[in-house]
């Protein structure tokens, strides 16, 4: 029985991987190779929507590592995604240069508008792509490290941890809304022009970003699968199931948790950095607690503790959201609310769990 489950898991994993790889290669390739009026050509809208799903899937994957494998229900995971996005947004803002409405060579438009005279210190260096990419990893990573170090060391667990992570993202939401913070306040960062000298609106760049998102997702998926299969991964899973027992065995639980939490935050940052150029804007609403809770429902919907479940969940929930907010704008919150209830009460293992049960029944 156990073998069968494992085999089916491997089969699902292989399927998910091959579908991902196919999407990642075919869609950009079609768009680059075929002319715009060809039947094989995907519209710019389709490419950016699917690209967005891929970054969400990466985000869901990173939360699954924290929640599904380490048992930490982080309700502020969206904050790391948004921070990665802001780091990317700052790079893109600096690329605008004199093409802004006010034409200031150094200051982004909103700073000129606020009558600022010089660039705040934390905006320095973001004109350099490599530095910005480093920050995409370091900013969420550092925040997660400091926060996690404080929280895990004093053994804040369970719902307490959930709520203080929510408070963290709520505090960041309030902070980023302030114009004085120097991140564009309410409007956030937008009106991007170039990335690495290429027009961000162009077909090629869009396809490239899509391709990179797919590669990042596949890479992260393989990396996380590998991590969870190592000894470290097993200790982390043990912490989820019996934290005190692992501690009594002599493991330093807080260090394992801290490591996973920080790593996942960096992955979320990468997802945010890939998301921002594809949708063309980053604003403080990304910090809203509701966004972070939506990530949780992707993972729960797909089936936590499986990694590919998070990917499936992120795509399914977001696809439904895109379709339903178009068809019945009022119904989306009912459906999202209903999902939370149904998944926790009836589908504790999510879609993946349901599929596996079906497979088992067929085999039996």
């Amino acid at each position, binding site marked *: 029985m156990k073998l069968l489950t494992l085999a089916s898991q491997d089969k699902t994993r292989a399927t998910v991987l091959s579908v991902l790889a196919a999407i990642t290669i075919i869609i950009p390739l079609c768009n680059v190779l075929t002319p715009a009026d060809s039947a094989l050509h995907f519209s710019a809208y389709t490419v950016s929507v699917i690209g967005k799903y891929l970054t969400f899937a990466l985000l869901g994957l990173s939360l699954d590592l924290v929640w599904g494998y380490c048992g930490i229900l982080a309700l502020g995971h969206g904050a790391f995604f948004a921070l990665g996005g802001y780091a990317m947004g700052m790079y893109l803002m600096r690329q605008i240069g004199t093409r802004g409405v006010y034409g200031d060579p150094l200051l982004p438009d909103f700073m000129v508008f606020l009558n600022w005279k010089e660039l705040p210190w934390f905006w320095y260096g973001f004109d350099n792509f490599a530095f910005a990419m480093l920050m995409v990893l370091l900013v969420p990573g550092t925040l997660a490290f400091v926060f996690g170090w404080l929280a895990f060391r004093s053994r804040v667990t369970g719902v307490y941890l959930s709520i203080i992570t929510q408070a963290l993202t709520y505090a960041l939401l309030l902070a980023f809304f302030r114009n004085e913070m120097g991140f564009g306040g309410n409007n956030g960062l937008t009106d991007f022009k170039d990335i690495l000298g290429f027009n961000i609106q162009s077909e090629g760049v869009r396809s490239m970003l899509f391709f990179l998102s797919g590669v990042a997702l596949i890479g992260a998926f393989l990396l996380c699968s590998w991590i969870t299969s190592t000894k470290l991964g097993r200790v982390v899973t043990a912490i989820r199931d019996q934290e005190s027992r692992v501690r009594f065995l002599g493991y330093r639980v807080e260090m394992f948790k801290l490591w996973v939490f920080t790593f996942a935050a960096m992955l979320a940052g990468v997802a945010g950095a890939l998301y921002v150029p594809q949708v063309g804007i980053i604003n403080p609403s990304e910090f809203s607690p509701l966004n972070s809770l939506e990530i949780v429902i992707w993972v729960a919907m797909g089936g936590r503790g499986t990694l590919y479940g998070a990917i499936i969940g992120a795509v399914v929930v977001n696809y439904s959201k895109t379709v339903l907010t178009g068809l019945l704008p*009022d119904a989306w*919150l009912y459906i999202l609310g209903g999902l939370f209830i149904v998944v926790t009460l009836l589908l504790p293992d999510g879609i993946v769990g349901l599929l596996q049960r079906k497979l088992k029944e067929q085999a039996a």
Partner: protein
Amino acid sequence: MNIPANKPLSYGLAVLMLLFSMLAHSETDATQQPLQDALAAIKQGSMSEREQAINHLVELKHPRSLVILQALLAGKLLVVKDQDKLVIGDAIDQDYNIVDAVSNEKLGIISAEQVGKINLTNKLRSNLRKIIGELELNADDDAVRLAAVKAMDKEVDARLLDLFKQRLAVEQNADVKEAIENILLLQQMDSADKNERMAAITQLQSHDSLDVVNKLKAITEKDADGNYAEADSDIRNIADAALTEINGRLRLYSSIETVFFGLSLGAVLVLSAIGLAITFGVMGVINMAHGELMMIGAYTTYVIQQLMPNYLGLSIILSIPAAFLISALVGIAIERGIIRFLYGRPLETLLATFGVSLFLQQTVRSIFSPLNRSVATPEWMSGSWQINDFLSLTWNRFYILIFCLIVFVLLMQILKHTKLGLEVRAVAQNRRMAKAMGIPTAQVDAMTFGLGSGIAGVAGVALSQITNVGPNLGQSYIVDSFMVVVFGGVGNLLGTLVAGFSLGIANKFLEPFAGAVLAKILVLVFIILFIQKRPRGLFPQKGRAADS
């Protein structure tokens, strides 16, 4: 708006007035005669005769004199043309609603063409204003006298000064007395005698009045050339000292005000957190829909007010039990329908109740529209308590503070002295042992959840009085109220109270120099750091219950 309800009342009043005026007619016809003469002069005479008649009216000291003169000043004293009769009329569109000037008898509505207004010259008008002031200064009502003193403190002449002095000699009311003294001393500050001026300044430094502060500031300030406005350095020094003393008191007042604002914010936090403290403390369940239960309470208030728009005060009072019941029922439904299947899985409960909160929000949005609704505040709750020129406390926040304490005490009594309370505490301490002792734990869970939810509903009634009612009302309180519970220590209601008030006060003290948003962030960061140090809050549970 309010006309239908007030009609019976106004009819009743009219009848009553009619009765009174008839009585007055029959008894005082003889004493009315001089009044009638004076009025006749006002009605027909030239401007100088009119002035004499006014003075005559004052000397008569007739009870109607003041009313008639006030009407004259306000341009409401009218002559009905065909009857040659003096009336007082309130303008309604093109018509006037008139009463007899002498008897106060209601005469109904008359068109503007049928009446003539009695005109005044500007000089006469300003004299009249003074005369009315003097009459008011000697009125029987304390509030009228105080208002008169305050109204007249701008242009004090020698004659008025005499009047004030006379009144001060017989004045009994402390507030009026202080107001008059204030004016007299301010006058004395301008006197030619240095000693009198210094005495006035010394006495004035115990008065909390904006005029005093302005006057003292004028004395101590330098003009554009760097010369002091006041040449005498003794006066300057003593004024400086007085100003320092008054400023010290002002700082105290502003601290009192900040504490009051903090307490009222704390009261809101406590009200919203206390229901959560019960469900979380007793059942270990985080109810993310708690904020939405508050929202339901607020909407209940709104609906009841829509049902009975003419009885604002009553509707608020009725809303309290109604909101409690409705929120409690919704809460019990949530517990029976969802939460009971998830006991022992707090993270799943958190997610499921979050789903419920989204559901409730959207339901309210569909029924009441996504726009904010405003709930009217009854008269006795609006306005503020003006303690002196520098310190005033708003009534609605004051009532909410008291309301919060009442709810808290009631809840404590329920938990301490009722059977339900006993069972709730037993289950909170040791669920399995309580069950072994025959306590129906499932039923107690439902009741506990209902109690916590009902209190959320009651908190919603309070919130409807200080903020607009909208679908997002609850969302903004859930993180805050959870912070209060955690800060105070789970399972400890007194801790919740202390935590709510201290967070409220801390927030308000930070606001002046950090701004509202930054203050909130600072408080959040402080709590996050605090939980690191004391994960179980200010007042942690002790003993075995703490381990679970």
